[in-house]
């Protein structure tokens, strides 16, 4: 299996106005791995994700996809790079005026020449994969939070993306639903071979899915550790250790 670097972030500094959120972030995400961006609330995890998915321009530094510096590309080239992404936003971000089927159809109509029948088949498949078969004509407002997230995942997978970004996929879900979503992400990685970048502070989820990851600290304004959760624990940083063991409350899951 190809494990070459797919995303390379180098010297990234993120800021809102004069306030620097994180600086000098350097890390690499390898093809086919599940990379978890972790850290406490308000440390800039979601902000980092927004920079990685092209919603916010970095103050300085580079974000490269397959060696191409995203922010230096022309709009059409950027669009081509983004074509290979699937994004699951925190609340699902389904378009509320459309049914689930219409939501999934939008990227398919935008980027492919599939016929209406083929699009219908893809919609059925994606919804079945996330356990929502039969929900094609439901509106997002008619679904529970967990179902909305799964539907968001189905839309994110519509174009069989190379990279799947998930912003806190398990937040606000009960433990059983959260575990199901984790299993789903693992299965998608294994079956599609997609690279998955997950923002999370859910320990159970981190220990279940994380291959590699990094730990952001809001006070220090930079990353304190990187590697597998065990490597981060072994590095001996007090804050990282406290986070990954919930203040010595629990032992790390194996």
């Amino acid at each position, binding site marked *: 299996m190809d494990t070459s670097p797919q995303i390379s972030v180098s010297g990234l500094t993120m800021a809102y106005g004069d306030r620097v959120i994180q600086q000098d972030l350097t890390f690499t995400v390898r093809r086919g791995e599940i990379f978890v961006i972790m850290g406490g609330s308000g440390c800039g995890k979601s902000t980092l994700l*927004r920079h990685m*998915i*092209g*919603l916010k321009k970095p103050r300085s530094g580079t974000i490269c996809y397959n060696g191409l510096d995203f922010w230096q590309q022309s709009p059409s080239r*950027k*669009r081509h790079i*983004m*074509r290979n*992404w699937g*994004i699951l*936003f*925190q*609340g699902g*971000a*389904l*378009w*509320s*005026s459309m049914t689930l089927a*219409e939501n999934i159809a*939008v*990227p398919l109509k*935008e*980027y492919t020449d599939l016929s209406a029948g083929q699009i219908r088949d893809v919609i059925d498949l994606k919804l079945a994969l996330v356990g929502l078969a039969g929900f094609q004509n439901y509106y997002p407002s008619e679904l529970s939070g967990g179902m909305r997230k799964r539907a968001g995942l189905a*839309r994110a997978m519509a174009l069989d993306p190379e990279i799947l970004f998930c912003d806190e996929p398990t937040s606000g879900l009960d433990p059983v639903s959260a575990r199901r979503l984790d299993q789903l992400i693992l299965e998608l990685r294994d079956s599609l071979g997609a690279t998955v970048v997950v923002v999370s502070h859910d320990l159970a989820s981190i220990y279940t899915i994380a291959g590699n990851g990094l730990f952001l600290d809001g*006070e220090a304004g930079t990353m304190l550790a990187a590697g597998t959760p065990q490597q981060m624990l072994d590095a001996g940083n007090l804050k990282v250790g406290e986070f990954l063991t919930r203040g010595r409350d629990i032992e790390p899951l194996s």
Partner: protein
Amino acid sequence: MNQPPSYQLLEQDPPQLQLTGNWRFIDGIPAIEELFDQLQQREMTGSLQLRGGNLGAWDSGLLTFLLKLLQWARDHSIFVDCSDLPEGVCRLLHLAGAVPPQPGRRRRRRSDPILTRIGNVTLELHQTWQDALRFIGESVLCSGNLLRGRPRFRFKDLLELLEDCGAQALPIVTLISLLVGMILAFVGAVQLRMFGADIFVADLVGLGMAREMAPMMTAVIMAGRTGAAFAAQLGTMQVNEEIDALITMGIPPMDFLVAPRMLALMTMLPLLCIYSMFMGILGGGLVSAAMLDINLTPFFLRIQENVGLQHFVIGVVKATVFGVIVALSGCLRGLQCGRSAQAVGQAATSAVVTGIVLVVVADAVITILCQVLGV
């Protein structure tokens, strides 16, 4: 024990602060400044022991008093021994001090100096103008896609918007237009009757409705009704990250969201304006019939003879321009919306205000142009 709260500074080594009575807000917490004065007069150093043996009931009032005391003691390098206080008080004080305020995180509540505020407002205005110009530029580009017959929105969305901006606005447009026509006729009738020029009411109502009142009132109604709705819809989409989802899929919100709204209002506002003209004239006719004994037939014939088609055309042209303005104001404010419920409300309000102001300005410009061109 129903004793009021009090304290006493005891001369011991180390000095002791004896707390007595019920320390609850309801009992009236003593002012701490007096205690600070006493402590300063004694030139306190070292440590201070708190005695809570005679303490009755307590609530957050006691804790606020003690927190201020602890802060003062920290500033004056005095150690405070709280071990004699009830266990609950000790634990809550410990909890309150567990996470010290981070340096630089505390926000100043004080307002900025006047020059700073003027500077900030100027920068904000500059940014607003830049955003508005960029938005207009982008809307021109997306109009190009429309003109080339390559729309990137769903036809179903456009149909729904047409219905919302057109058919569903008919009742309110009917009511307002009838009333405006009646008001025009009523005001005209009172004045013109004095000169025996009753029939000129028809000219007044016809001209007024066709050139000014119908396009203006329809635009104001649509700014309040549809412009605000556009801003709220797009603002809510912003809050729910639905617009982010579009951008990251490479679908420009201008093409997918703004273009159909602009097209819908640009199409429906002139039609509503024509409808409003006739409703206004009908309202004027009814008042003329009731007040001036001018029947509807001569009233309409008079308008037909004296109010030329060009006046109706000018009204429709104005309405088309107003439609674009109202749609763009609503969409601009919606896309600029922040990520909170309050921001959605502000976006809706701002869309209405911007829409109406720009409609009036555009009306003045078109009226002057018509004057210059002699139309």
